[in-house]
Structures are given as C-alpha cells and as structure tokens.
C-alpha cells in the first residue's frame, strides 16, 4: 500500500507539469494578449490609450518575452506558492481569489448536499421498485432537471423570487449586509438567496446520479448473495443497506475526483447568470480578457484538486471494496 501511494504521488508531478503546459498553451491560443483586449475594451467605451504606454506596459508585464519564458516564470513562481499577478485587477492572483473562495465553497457544499438528498432516496426507491409507475415518474422529474437549461431555470427563478418574495436580484446577499460582520440577519439574507443557485445547479446533477445509483443497485440486487441473504431471513432494509448499496457505491466514491474541483469552481454559467460573487465568473472573465496568470493559476488549482481527488477516491475504493486491487495490470 505504501509503495503504491508513493508511486501515485510521483506520477502526480509529471501529470501536473503536462497539465500546466497545456493550460498555458490553451490560454495563449486566442490571438492577442491581455493588453490588446484591454485596449479593445477601453476603445469600445470611447477611451483611448497612448500606444507608447502600451509598449511600456507590455515590457513591464513581461508580455514581450517569448512564450516559453513567460511559462517558466509562471510555473517557477507557482511552485514557490506565488500564483502570479492579475492584470485585470492589478493585484496578486491569490488576493483576487481569496475572498471569493468561502462563498463558492458554501454554494457548492449545499448544492452537493441537495443533490445527494434528492438523488439517493429516489435512486434507491427506483432500483427496488423498477419499472413501476412511481419509478418512471420520479426519474422523469430527475430528467426534467437535467434537460432544462440551467441558465434559463435560474432566470425564471430569479424573477419569481423577486416577484413573490421580494428577494433582490442576483448575488448571494443583500447589498446592505456586504461589509457587515456575520449576524442572523446576514445569514438569513444569504439563505434567502442561496436556495436558487443550489436548487438550479442541484437539479441538473440529480438525474445522472439517480440513473447511476439505480443501475448499479439493480445489478447488485440480482446477484446470488442477495438471494441467499433473503432466504436466510435478513430484513429487506438491512439487506439492502448492508451489502448491495455498499457495493453499488463505487461509482459514487470514484466521483470524488471530480467533486473536489467542483466545490471550488461551482457551476460557472449559473454563477454568471445569477451574478454570484463566487470564483466561476472570475475564471470566465479572466479567460475572456486573457488575464493569463489569473486564468492559468485558477485552472492549475482545479487540476491539482482533480489529481488529489482521484487519488483520494482510489484509496477509498481500495479500502471499501476488496475486489479492487492496487497493482492493476501487474497481476496478470
């Protein structure tokens, strides 16, 4: 086990390096650089900027250096914990992202919770009562959530919440609470806004989860050990939870790999539509304006979380399911 862990850790380093190079190349792929998109934006508003000053800034930001050199500067800084500098905000990347992280985590945490709370009971029920009317109608609900475009649902719910509950449009908090310390009123304001994104993002995730849980569980339920258990007089609920459910959870644990980054990134599109103060919209804006260090560092962060998440799920899987072997191909 230890040897396996060590190996996995070592493999992570080249993986992240390759990812970092890819991220950097992809961000640089669109023509131009941050300064050009900055000029274009100023110009569209009627402002202009001295071309000499742009040359100066390009030199100052190091944008006149060859790509590989820019990459090296960035990646060596990254290793030392310096995430680079955001041109757009004129601040170090860490400071830009810093504050937003908490709200993002709150939104994502509740979203995941809601997804599970909806998907688990429905999945289990569907699997134990397959092909019944109730199965069909419950899965239909799940599919509706999946099929409705998130941004549209978000807008409709915003409108309804504003119309019938007087919730202020967009954001996670009423503006008057923004600089205040945490209080009951502030918490209430957050909860008042939170349910929309949570429900919108949550509904889209439930359908997939319901289907996978249902399929896996149904597979297990047909296996001989379940029949044996039942014939030996094990209660239905106990029987279900103790063995088949546990085994059908593999997919769920394997999901942790993608769960970690999604906690940080949230659902970008919904966050943009709802103008949530989370990290998603920052990433999107950074990509649009080619604020490369901000976008790059953020994507790297997500990549690192994915890699770590996959590692965690691998370890958990090995612990929970003895059928899974660590050495993989070496056994043959």
């Amino acid at each position, binding site marked *: 086990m230890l040897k396996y862990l060590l190996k996995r850790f070592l493999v992570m380093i080249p993986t992240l390096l390759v990812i970092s190079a890819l991220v950097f190349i992809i961000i640089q792929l*669109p*023509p*131009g650089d941050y300064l*050009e*998109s900055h*000029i*274009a*934006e100023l*110009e*569209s*508003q*009627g*402002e*202009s900027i*001295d*071309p*000499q*000053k742009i*040359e*100066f800034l390009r030199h*100052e930001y190091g944008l006149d250096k060859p790509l590989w050199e820019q990459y090296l500067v960035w990646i060596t800084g990254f290793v030392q914990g310096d995430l680079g*500098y955001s041109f*757009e*905000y*004129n*601040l*170090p990347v860490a*400071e*830009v992202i810093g*504050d937003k992280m908490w709200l993002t985590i709150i939104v994502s945490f509740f979203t995941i919770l809601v997804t599970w709370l909806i998907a688990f009971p429905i999945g289990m029920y569907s699997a134990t009562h397959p092909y019944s009317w109730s199965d069909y109608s419950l899965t239909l609900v799940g599919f509706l959530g999946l099929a409705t475009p998130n941004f549209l649902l978000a807008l409709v719910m*915003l*409108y309804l919440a*504003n119309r019938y509950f007087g919730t*202020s*449009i*967009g*954001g996670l908090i009423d*503006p008057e609470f*923004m*600089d205040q310390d945490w209080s009951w009123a502030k918490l209430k304001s957050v909860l008042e806004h939170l349910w929309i994104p949570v429900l919108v993002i949550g509904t889209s995730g439930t359908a997939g989860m319901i289907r996978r849980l249902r399929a896996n569980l149904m597979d297990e339920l047909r296996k001989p050990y379940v029949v044996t258990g039942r014939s030996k007089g094990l209660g239905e609920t106990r029987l279900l939870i103790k063995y088949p459910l546990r085994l059908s959870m593999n997919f769920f644990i394997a999901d942790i790999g993608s769960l970690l980054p999604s906690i940080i990134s949230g659902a970008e599109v919904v966050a*943009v*539509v*709802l*103008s949530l*103060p989370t990290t998603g*919209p920052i990433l999107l*804006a950074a990509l649009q304006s*080619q604020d490369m260090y901000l976008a790059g560092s953020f994507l790297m962060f997500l990549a690192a979380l994915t890699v770590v998440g996959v590692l965690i799920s691998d370890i958990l899987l090995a612990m929970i399911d003895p059928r899974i072997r660590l050495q993989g191909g070496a056994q043959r």
Partner: protein
Amino acid sequence: MFQNFLPYLLLIASCAVSPAFAQLKPVPFLADQVANGSLQPMQERLPYSPAKPSFFDKEVGQYGGKIRMLMAKAKDIRLMVAFGYSRLVGYDEQLQLKADILKQVDIEEGRIFTLHLRPGLRWSDGAPFTAEDFRFYWEDMATNETLSPFGPSKDLLSQKEKPVFEVIDEYTVRYSWASPNPYFLPALAGPRPLFIYMPAHYMKQFHADYQSAEKLTLLTEEAHKRNWRGLFVSKGRQYKLTNPDLPSLQPWINTTRPPAERFIFKRNPYFHRVDPNGQQLPYIDEIEINLASTGLIPAKAGSGDVDLQARYLRLDNYTFLKEGEENGNYKVNLWETGRGAQIALYPNMNAKDPQWRQLMQDVRFRRAISMAVDRNEINQVVYFGLAKDMANTVLPSCPLFKSEYATAWSDFNVEAANQLLDEIGLTKRDARGIRLLPDGKPMEILVQTAGESTEETDVLSLVEDSWKRIGVQMYVKPTQREVLRNRVFSGEAIMSAWYGLPNGVPVASMSPWQMAPTKQDQYQWPQWGRYYETGKGKPSTMPEVQELVTLNNAWGMASSVEEQAQIWNRMLEIHADQVFSIGLVSGVLQPIVVNKNLMNIPENAFYNWDPGAYFGIHNMTGFFYKDAE
C-alpha cells in the same frame, strides 16, 4: 445650446467671492467629526474663494442620502472620475471651458498658460493643494526617467516639444510652449483627464528621491511589486481609484480596497464647490457601487435596485424599464447620445486583397453601398422610429452641423446605386443576381462585427436585404473585439461594423483628430492611422485623405476659432462627399433610470463620453434627494 468660445483670448475667471453667509448649515454627515474636533467647520475646509457652478434651471438642494449604481466590473469604478468631473478646467453644459479646481487660467498667444490655484484649497486628507503638487508631477514624475521612460504624456507636447514649466509662487504655475497648444486645456477637461498634479505630500513616500532605500524596499515588498516604480504607479492611480488612501480632489472618495463586490464612495469634506447659498457641495453623502453581471443590470434596475443608472442599459430595455417605474420608485429619462452614428460600416481602404482595396478606395463604390441602405426602415424596425436616419457625421445638436452632411449619399436610392456600380464596370452578374468582381468571383462582402449585441446583427440583416437589390451579397460575422481589431489592422477584414464618430457634438475648438487618419483604431484606414501614430508604414496617397491630414495639422496651428470652424467644415464636407464610413443609424437614445426623489437631473440632456463625461458635465455634485432622511 452650444456656443463657441475663444481659446486664445480665454480668460477663465472664477465667479465666486468667498461666501459672506455666516450661518452655513453644517453637513449632517460630517457633524460628529466636526463636533469632536477631528474636522474643521465648513468655512475652514473650503478654499478662500470656492467654485460656484451654475445652478441655472436647478434648485438649491439639501444634504444627505446615498446614490446606488451598478457596474459590471470592479475596474468600472474608474468612471467615478468622469461622474465626479472635478477638473482644473472643465466644460459646462454649454460646452464652454470654465475654471473648476483652478481659480483662473491666463492664456497668452495660445501657448503660455498660467494656472492660478485657489488659495486654501485642500486635498481630501486636509493637506493644502499647492504649486508643489504640480512641480512634483512635472519634475519627479512626468520627466523622471524611471517613472516615465517615454517622456511626458503626448497631451503635454506641442509639435513634439515639451513645455517650460515654472513655479511662479505657491499658488501659480506656468506652462509655456514654443508654439500654440490648443490640445492642452481640452485634455485637462476630458472625461479621463490629464492629471498634471499629484498629491506630493502623500506620493513622496513612494518615490526613490524622497524615501530612504530601506523603507522603500520594505514598502515595495509589502505591496508585492517588483520595483519602486511599480509601487509608485500602483499607489498613485488617480484615474483608476484603486488606492483608497490616495488623497483626491474629487467630490466622492473611494473607501473600499479592491477586490470587492461593492464599493462605497464617501463625500470629500474638503471639496471646493459650493451652491448659490454658499453651502459646500456635494449634497449626496455616499455613492454605492454594486457589481452585477451585465445581463442582470437591466433587471435589477427595473426592480428598483438603483438610484441612477445608464451604463449597460439600452434602448431595447426601455419598455421593460418603463413598466417597472411604479413599483421601483424611479422614472426613465431618454437622453441623447453623442456618437456620430450608433452603428456604421467601415470599408477597409487598407484591405489586403488588391481587388477589394481598389474597390474600397473608389468613391463611387462607397457612395453606392451607402445609398443602398434603407435607413428609415432600420430606424422604424429596430429603434421604434426614435433614432435618426442620417450619415455618420456630427449630430444636429452640434453647432457645426449642416443638413447636407447628414443627407449626403444617405437617401435610399437603389437605382442610383446600381447605376454607380455599373459605371465602375461591375456589370456581370451570376445566377443569383449577385454582381461579379473583375476576376469573376461573386461580390460577397463579409462584414465583421464585435458581436457584442443582437442590435448589430438585427440592423445588419436589414442592410443585407437592401444590398441584395444592388447585387451585393453581405455576410455578417461576429467575432471577439480583439480579433476584429486585429483583422481590420492586418487588412484581412474588408469591411467592419463599429460605432460612428466618437464625438458627435464637437465644437470648433475641439481637435478634429477623429476626422483624419490619426489612429490605428480608425477602421476605414487603420494603416494610414498607424502611420500617423507611430511613423511606421506608409501614408495615404489619396488626395482627399491627404487633405484631411493637412487640415488636421492646420487646425493645431489655427489662430482663431473662426479658422478652426472653417477647417472643421471643410473636413466634414470631405467626409460627407467621400463617404469614408457609412452611418446606418444615429441619435439612438439612452435610457437613464433615476430615483423619483433625486432632483436636479435634467429631463432631456445628452449622454456622452467625450465631451460630456456621462453624468459629469451635468454636475452630479448638485444632485440631491427631495426627501432625504
């Protein structure tokens, strides 16, 4: 509405004497600070002779309240410099230059400018505003090799010459050039003004000449900067407002350190303007700027989440906004906009393809495609008939406007357009009825747009229909702004859609740079503009374009405003005749959402960047709440 003024004989005098009223009501917002002694009473905070902006047509207001606005990005807060519009000299609503922060400017021969400061005027932290602040800017910043490796800003040069700067006394400075500099005062009055002063008492701590090396290194590290230049620049951004500690002369001072979702601007207790009763302005205590995504801003405005909003609202939001007036406690004003055209087509005369380049440079072709646009239809279909169907030229409210500029080659006339194209020799057509180019390819024009709104594509699809009737096939290709620019610059884009003249309401004493190839950003002649800007590449060989360049240069040397007006008229004439850009629709109105209780905001006015500074020119410091708490 607009009047010319004589820049060379300009004597800008302050109109106010020190308020004789002994009983000035204190500002309630600052009452506590005055009571506990941390702030002086109002008279001592004001300069000896405060600025007294005109309150013609306006009411004397009362203190208090907060204006809520929405912006899409944190860096949009820089617009508060435009809105506050505190300038050394600034335009008034009649577009005349008036002293504001300065007491007076004396001009000799159009080249020697003596600036008289207001004695007793203070920065927002209470430090006096003196000639030292100008000296510091000029000697330690604009001509400092480390801070300005390229020398002072272009606006401070006349015929590429630097001015001679002199400090006459504590409250007087002088800039003198060898030749006239008509660009100087307008640059100071711009929406993004040329700051020729710096809070020296504050900025010296970040300057290598004034700060010890150890302390400077420490400060640089604290701010995560590479060198002291980075530190100095980041601390001293008078336009971007990212440093809440930076003393300012603006009416409201940013108190929020970025990054943030919400920025609070608080009143400057030392602001230099007073109302007709001698009460210190601004009336409004706070400006609150919240960030929201662009798409949500109209919705939020419609639910009453703002007190004053124009940015990110468009004419097509008008009906929605109007519907929410009752519940949202606001009203919607429609203001005129100041661009020469809302959307214009730019035939790229520097196109790479030689065949197209030749065609684009042929005036007959430009006239033909302009006449084949049904502007009235566009106006009726897309803009509820509220816009104006005219060419891309100055707007009717501009004193230089003549109706022939607006109508030249802009009447819908398919027959005449067809005739012109036949005359060029484009007589062959394919089976679809599309004309063939000399090399046999069909005449298909790909119009590239920045693709930011459906408005452009709606308008262009109408043009596409009418162009078919002269045998020209148009395709529209929305791209990203940066990509569009690069394609235009490289000549890959043969035609692009963009907005019209940046300033549609100029007066003769404003530089006519926008009429001549002076910038690469002019999409009909990017290469010629680049030549002017950087000296690289080749100038135009077209006589009409050369004349524009000559005229633009002559304007800078003109000795009277009549001469300048003549130059303007000639340039407008050339543009009208030559159709260098094809205006599709003009005078589109801007919806302004205003809290019902917010007073002194004109019902009808114009909303424009330069000149105008959006709300700036309408003196936002005089806005007030009728029922302020």
